[in-house]
């Protein structure tokens, strides 16, 4: 075979050119431009989607418990966001001292849930308290999940000594009794809201690092990672565009659960008296009211109920998400 023949065959495979041009001239010109779609194609896509049922994820979430969870989370978020409009009393009155009212008043028309120490309205504190809990929870979770994911993926992907060192550090922090450690740190740095956020965030990194390391190790051994290497992807690209999207699901679930966990733990901290005293916070309320539990149970009951509600909301949502996202459960049916 002469070189010319080879070239001809090589560059113009039979029939291919015509086929290609034909398709280009019909509807495919839209296909090669990202984001554009052709009408006929869309029709086909519609037929196709009829098969694969895009609503799968939403139908999975369509579980009574999950729906309750979503509603509760939205409710608590609304309280937190619209607290100034929803609260019957201004922040000054529920945070410091209400001069127009007395300590531990039973529920009445004026104070629907009664009052607590310094005559502060329980309902008002309940609404304002959502702010502290949610903002601390959210900030802490963002810190810990972002850094945890980065550390975990690097540790899993490179392995070796780096992995050993990171994991030993993780072991040490994990081995600490969590609440005790937080109490000690809070005692050292003072119970400032921003410190508390940081402490929860930093301590949480460890858990996320370990969580994502586990799944990333599994993903790392999958063939598509090798295929990406063969396609010339660099390490960072493999880590963050190939492996990360495939192991983010458990992180999403864990984040939902952990927001609840942090709110709960924060309440415990305040209950022990280590919370930020200037903050309107549910745990602090219970701490204040616990000595009067015999005479004014409402003052301790409602904040606790609010904690339960908020945490339960996140837990229900997390549970639903896990069911919906878990590939093992998904493949069945």
């Amino acid at each position, binding site marked *: 075979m002469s070189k010319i023949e080879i070239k001809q065959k090589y560059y113009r495979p039979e029939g291919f050119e015509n086929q290609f041009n034909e398709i280009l001239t019909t509807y495919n010109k839209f296909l090669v431009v990202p984001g554009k779609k052709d009408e006929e194609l869309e029709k086909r896509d519609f*037929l*196709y989607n009829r*098969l694969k*049922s895009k609503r799968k994820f939403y139908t999975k979430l369509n579980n009574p418990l999950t729906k309750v969870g979503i509603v509760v989370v939205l409710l608590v978020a609304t309280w937190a966001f619209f607290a100034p409009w929803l609260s019957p009393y201004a922040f000054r009155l529920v945070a410091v001292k209400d001069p127009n009212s007395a300590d531990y008043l039973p529920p009445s028309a004026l104070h629907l849930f009664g009052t607590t120490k310094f005559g502060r309205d329980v309902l008002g504190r309940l609404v304002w308290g959502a702010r502290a809990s949610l903002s601390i929870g959210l900030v802490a979770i963002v810190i810990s999940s972002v850094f945890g994911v980065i550390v975990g993926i690097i540790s899993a992907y490179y392995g070796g000594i780096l992995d050993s060192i990171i994991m030993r550090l993780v072991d040490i922090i994990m081995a600490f009794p969590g609440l005790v450690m937080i109490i000690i740190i809070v005692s050292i740095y003072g119970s400032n809201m921003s410190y508390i956020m940081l402490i929860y965030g930093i301590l949480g990194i460890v858990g996320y690092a370990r969580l994502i390391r586990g799944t990333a190790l599994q993903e790392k051994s999958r063939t598509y990672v090798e295929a990406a290497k063969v396609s010339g992807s660099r390490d960072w690209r493999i880590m963050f565009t190939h492996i990360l999207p495939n192991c983010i699901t458990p992180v999403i679930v864990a984040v939902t659960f952990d927001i609840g966990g942090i709110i709960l733990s924060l309440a415990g901290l305040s209950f022990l008296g280590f919370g930020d005293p200037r903050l309107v916070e549910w745990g602090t309320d219970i701490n204040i009211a616990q000595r009067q539990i015999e005479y004014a149970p409402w003052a301790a009951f409602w904040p606790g109920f609010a904690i339960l509600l908020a945490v339960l909301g996140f837990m229900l949502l997390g549970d639903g998400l896990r069911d919906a996202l878990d590939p093992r459960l998904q493949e069945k*049916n």
Partner: protein
Amino acid sequence: MKNVKDMSKTFNNLDISGASQKMTKNDVKPLLIVKDLHTYFFTQEGIVKAVDGVSFTINHDEILGLVGETGCGKSVTALSLLKLIRSPGEIVSGEIFFDGIDIVEKTNEEMLKLRGNIMTMMFQDPMNSLNPVLKVGDQVSEVYLLHQMEFLKDELQKAKEKNSKLKENLKRMKKELKTCSPEGAETLKNQINAIKQQIKFRITINDIARREAAALLDRIGLPNAETIVNRYPHELSGGMRQRIMISMGLACNAKLLICDEPTTALDVTIQAQILDMIRELKRKLKNSVLFITHSLGVIYELCDRVAVMYSGNIVEYGTVQNIFKNPQHPYTQGLMTSIPRVTRESRAQELTIIPGMVPNLIFPPSGCRFHPRCDHAMVICKKIRPELHEMPNKVQVACHLFNKDKSGEEYRKLTEEEKQEDVL
């Protein structure tokens, strides 16, 4: 061969002897009759018609092969026979008669007595099909414990009697020891020690079952059966695990053994071993086998008759010799030609292929499910689902090509566009 003798002996008391076999031979009734079976899965996406009108029979002492591609409903058919279909699946209609028993009408409680006893099933992946935390012996002996309780109790009684006899002997000897001379004492002591080793402290029914399991594994040709019963599945190789799966099926000498792709996960040489073993066992035990596979080669080597499945239907059904020599249905023809053959002539030829792919079972094509991929597709193929017809060479084929009168618009050939109309 020693093994053969042993086997026939033990299986005699399990009520499957040559004599009873002969009696059933005269009876022309087939062992299993499946009529128009429909098994659907009611999922959120829609109804998956996994098995849609399947009929076949299995005779006594015969291997029926069920061949088809992934997702054509082979395994679901097999699971339906044992009523092991789990929610959201359901046997919608159809009849299954096994040895005169109506399986579809049976309650779950009644099925428990049949499963593993007179009909049993082994699965594709022997690693996942054996419980990883139980010893192999326990898993095999469980079948005895479930279905052979009477037999085991008899054996237990025998063993206990033997034990008590030994104990009496021991007592007598001990008495003698006190009175006898010093020279005789030496030999007596040895005898006593020997007996002591034979006496078991306590014999339970589990011990008997485990002993039977070891004996079974031994008969099946596993070396060191005594030690293998005390191993865990992960300590064995793939071939050994598959043998253990087979032995579980044979423990009660089931009349029907359903093998769901038993050799797919194995290497060629091991596959040859296992096929050889199934063939041997079937020859000795004269039971029937439903062999499910996607490999035409295995079917050709092992089976007597074959049913070719496509997308929940049987399209061709007959003896292996006839179908492999002269396939009639376009799908079977396509399958046959798409296998690379190992002959000098076949090398030069390009493989002829079936275009397209297996249809989705939620929205299957109308009429004949094969028509979108068929070269001979006609208008009628799109409208009416063909029934199985008996052909001159005793092969049953479900295809409109073999209708007698083929004139009129109904038999116009479809164009490519028409074929693909409702295919996604």
